[in-house]
């Protein structure tokens, strides 16, 4: 099990009910973690529609997670 710090934004924050948390996970990759969270909290987007930031860098969803990583799942952006 790894402890991962997760931040939630927009629709993910609304569905999860909070902006961040640190959780233990068996997930090996960012995609596996997303799929777990999406199932647990009824996230409305498939992993293919979501980007991931690991330690403040955009990374592929297949990125392997390390203990203590700071992860944020990025739904489609709409700034500007």
């Amino acid at each position: 099990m790894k402890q991962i710090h997760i931040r939630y934004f927009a629709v993910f924050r609304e569905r999860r009910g909070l902006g961040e948390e640190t959780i233990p996970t068996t997930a090996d990759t960012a995609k596996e973690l997303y799929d777990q969270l999406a199932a647990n909290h009824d996230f409305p987007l498939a992993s293919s529609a979501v980007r991931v930031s690991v330690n403040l860098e955009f990374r592929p969803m297949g990125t392997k997670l390390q203990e203590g990583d700071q992860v944020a799942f990025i739904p489609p952006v709409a700034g500007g």
Partner: protein
Amino acid sequence: MDFQLTREPIEALPSSPLDRAGGYVVFEGRVRCENEGREVRSLEYEAFDEMAVRVGEEILQAARAKFDILEAGCVHRIGHLQIGDRAIRVEVAAAHRKAAFEACDWIVDEVKRNVPIWKKEHYLEGDSGWIGIDSTLPT
């Protein structure tokens, strides 16, 4: 000039002039009252602050390398905005206007494409929706 997020109203303050800049282009994105046939009452911007500033700075750096400009800067407002409020302000200084216009347009496109900021519109009917997210969901 740099990339900033602000929760305060964006003022129309020009930067201090640069000696070699003959042209300044400023783009202001404002909140409009309708979108995709819906009447908008107000909207909210939410940002992943640290990453938004990092990605925004990278965009400005890339613009300085890609276009023949002297400087570029951007401010994006977050929080609850009313109709007519400035949501984003991009300013580009160059010796000549063509590069300034092109760089400004490119920066706006890149900010919209990549910066982790989300927009939730509140409609006249009382409902609301996350732009680019809720519209992709099955009804």
